[in-house]
């Protein structure tokens, strides 16, 4: 029998929520928390201590069937276009308010699960999630089709209808924020959702499930089913009752999902995948700011960011000066307990990731790159890795080509803008890029030449709820956030009403 409640007492943590948190766990299907059909569970590990947090229920294929059934029923009766845009919007805004009312608890759960600093979890992740849901609440009654002029014999118009039941699979790096990015546009446009958070970090999703119920969403509209990728995730991607799957995660898994979608029912697919985003430091930049932003670009969220600025190219005539400032900033970040108010960097999310990153670091050393800083585990407890910087790199090296997803950056020189553009674009990825220069004209010209879905000028990792985000090339397809996300969750029906046109035969 799987546990039905998750509990953790935060009163001994150094800061944050400071109380006991206790909430229903289990799978949230059709408005109820239930055991999985075959009672499977998975152990949650606290990455700060490497100790167990207990078990949570994970979904099997049969549970996904039940979730899809519940979503389908809701879509046909209480949701879809049976619920007006105003009602859908009100519910989303209510959910945003409930998240804000419980912000400290949610931030603490996020830190416990993921290892990120609790102050950041609160200010960025949880507040960001509320902001995104509120934003899409405002879109819900503004999904317009068009009336289109043809001729007097015809009245033609389009409807932007919800797809129906959509599957959403989210990663472990920003659990609650990614939840909002996914649920916001899907629910605003009237879809019912089968939502699979990462089995490594299910806690905030499970806590939000209770808030979804409290907000008043009809049962079955949102089903939250933590599960293992190749079981629950695969079941979603293959399910013939699901009209669309949205995935954020690695490029490798993205391929598998697209394949499954193709071989099952050709469900629509949007993907937010990996990146190896370049930070470009030009000789007319504000050196101090560039060094700080570049460090932030590689170290934020412990490097576990799809758009992390992991390749830093510095113009040769300022290279030494930049490197000195950059290393000083990197060295200054504090690693430690996520609940300690001064902590900037906590542990990596899991043993698997920890091993993978250290493996890349070893490889970098073997390939002949110079490890200027870091390169080891930090401390002896938990999955902490020292901020690590490589120089003397070559484009063919694995640490230059592949996504490491840890606090590991590579730095190289360039001499002119043409060379720079080639270096920056020489990747299968295309998620983001950043240009540091005080000459706006030069920066904009470079920005226009970069093959990336987001280009930052004199900033890094700046995400705005109303500005779209997504990848070029193998970093993904489709855009999230902003108005653009609505297109991922609607399908266009064109209606032609023949008023007086005679049949041809």
């Amino acid at each position, binding site marked *: 029998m799987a546990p039905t409640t998750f509990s953790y007492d935060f009163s001994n943590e150094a800061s944050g929520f400071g109380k006991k948190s206790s909430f229903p766990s289990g799978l949230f299907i059709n408005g109820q928390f239930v055991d999985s059909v075959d009672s499977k569970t998975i152990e949650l590990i606290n990455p700060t201590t490497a100790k167990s947090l207990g078990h949570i229920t994970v979904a099997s294929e049969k549970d996904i069937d039940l979730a899809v059934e519940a979503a389908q029923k809701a879509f046909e009766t209480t949701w879809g276009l049976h619920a007006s*845009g*105003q009602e859908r*919007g*009100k519910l989303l*805004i209510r959910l945003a308010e409930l998240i804000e009312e419980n912000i400290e608890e949610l931030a603490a759960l996020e830190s416990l699960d993921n290892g990120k600093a609790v102050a950041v979890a609160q200010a960025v992740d949880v507040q960001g999630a509320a*902001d995104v849901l*509120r*934003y899409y*609440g*405002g*879109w*819900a*009654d*503004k999904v*317009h089709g068009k009336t289109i002029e043809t001729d*007097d014999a015809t*009245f033609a118009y389009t409807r932007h209808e919800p797809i129906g039941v959509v599957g959403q699979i989210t990663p472990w790096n920003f659990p609650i924020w990614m939840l909002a990015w996914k649920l916001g546009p899907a629910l605003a446009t009237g879809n019912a959702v089968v939502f699979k958070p990462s089995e490594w970090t299910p806690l905030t999703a499970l806590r939000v499930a209770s808030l979804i119920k409290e907000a008043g969403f009809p049962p079955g509209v949102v089903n939250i089913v933590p599960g293992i990728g190749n079981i629950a995730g695969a079941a979603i991607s293959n399910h013939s009752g699901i009209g669309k799957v949205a995935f954020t995660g690695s490029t490798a898994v993205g391929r598998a999902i697209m394949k499954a979608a193709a071989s099952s029912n050709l469900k629509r697919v949007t993907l937010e995948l990996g990146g190896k985003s370049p930070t470009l430091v*030009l*000789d*007319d930049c504000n050196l101090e700011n560039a060094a700080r932003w570049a460090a932030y670009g590689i170290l934020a969220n412990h490097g576990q960011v799809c758009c992390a600025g992991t390749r830093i190219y510095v113009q040769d005539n300022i290279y030494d000066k930049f490197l000195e400032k950059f290393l000083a900033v990197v060295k200054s970040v504090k690693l430690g307990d996520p609940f300690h108010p001064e902590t900037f960097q906590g542990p990596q999310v899991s043993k698997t990731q920890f091993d993978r990153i250290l493996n890349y670091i070893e490889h970098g050393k073997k390939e002949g790159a110079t490890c200027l800083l870091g390169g080891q585990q930090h401390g002896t407890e938990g999955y902490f890795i020292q901020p690590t910087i490589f120089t003397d790199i070559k484009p063919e090296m694995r640490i230059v080509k592949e996504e490491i997803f840890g606090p590991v950056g590579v730095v190289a020189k360039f001499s*002119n*803008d043409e060379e720079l553009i080639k270096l920056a674009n020489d990747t299968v990825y295309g998620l983001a890029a950043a240009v540091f220069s005080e*000459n*706006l*004209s*030069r*920066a*904009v*010209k470079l920005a*226009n*030449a970069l093959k990336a879905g987001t280009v930052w000028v004199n900033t890094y990792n700046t995400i705005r*709820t*109303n500005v779209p985000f997504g990848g070029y090339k193998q970093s993904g397809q489709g855009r999230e956030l902003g*108005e653009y996300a609505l297109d991922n969750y609607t399908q266009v029906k064109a209606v032609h*009403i023949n*008023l*007086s046109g005679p049949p041809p035969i």
Partner: protein
Amino acid sequence: MSTSLPTLLTFPNGRELTVPTGLFIDNKFVPSIEGATIQSINPVTEEVLAVVSSATAKDIDIAVASSRHAFRTVWGRNIPGVERGKLLNRLADLMERDTDPLGDLEALDNGKSAEVARAVDLPEAIACLRYYAGWSDKIFGQTIEVDDKGHKSASTRIEPLGVCAQIIPWNYTIMMLAWKIGPALAAGCTVILKPSELTPLPALKLAELVVEAGFPPGVFNCVPSFGDVGGAALTSHLDVDKVAFTGSTATGRKIMQAAALSNLKKVTLELGGKSPHIIFASANLKEGPRSCESCHWGVFLNQGQDCVAGTRLYVQAKVYDAFIEELLHSAKEWTAGYGDPFAEGALGGPLVSEVQRDKVAAYVDSARAEGASIVYGGERWQGKGWYYLPTIIGDVTPTMKVVKEEIFGPVLVVTKFETEEEVIALANDSTYGLGAGFHSNDANQCQRVLARLEAGTVWVNQYGQLYPQVPFGGYKQSGMGRELGTYALENYTQVKSVLWDYSGGSAQ
């Protein structure tokens, strides 16, 4: 005599409510600098409800300066759209909380049914504010390709207009206030709202909620005033960027003139109407009562004091007799519902003022004089209160005053017609073009008729339904510009095109 102290009102249902009486400027209630006042009269008892401050030209100067300062410092581009949206949603929450007292106050000041005010006026106003709250952070410009060498960019910025004067009528004070401030505040403009001197109280009470919601001072100023004093001062003010007006066509002309002669401020107008309501023989008259209902709903709700009231009924000959019989039956139910606005089940009350009541009575008299038949109602009310009861007039011709001019009371004129061609011509034979409605079950007929009616809103098989997301406004002399929907945002924004040449920025 100056006034700014709140006054305590007692309602027929026992409710007590304090209502501020000062001009609302910079989040404070202040007396008129020159001590001018307005008496708000209860149209049921004909007695003074309250005395409130009235803005003179000097007060308007102060209000405009306050709005301009707020626009420069705490509003406009000084606050992100998402925050403006939150404030609008908060105001909507507070109006929801206070729906009952606000609805009662709207009824007390205007004479409309309190139940209807609570069930219709308030929810529509609240929904409108929520709708525009959602738009606050979704106002987009364009980026536009102009150059194939990648050296130039063109884009548009959608910027708030600035200080906007908004002059609203007395028929739906709270709803009209929401229609005006929703898009204006969402777009980042600051607002000086002048409610009608006949119904200043609900707007002043709402001003308290504006403070409670957290709007910074000067973002919303509320200045009850007489049209030819405060209204004139606003429309000719050199530091007001835009005037939005809802009211009579006659006043609309004056406003447009004043705007032109002063600083060419931008103008949008929602004016009068004489909207046709057509019953085709192809209509589903087994649900006849429903069509009848919509006819009455279209003209007797709010005592006919509605710019888009369906005041000219056209019934196709084939179904005329049966329909008129049904119409008269249900007219009796409506009339029974006219009485004390605070009675349970009240459908209607008095007209808003003695002047309005006399105007309506004069129109009905003119119909008699011109040879029309008063088929239903048309009698003078005996006793206190400025009532005029539902009236239906038949045997009219297109040139009669009651057919051509806006009566703004519960008076319906009925005409029989033979063909679709004929009725479309009759329907369009008006200087107005605000709304139109028709009933037909023939899909091709529906398409033909809706395409050819000259009206800003056409209702098919219903009448009068409005949604905050669907635009509303007039053809011809019924106005210019659209309120509601995405279109209202255009009334409060201006487009700045930015053309940037960055070809000079090469390295080395």
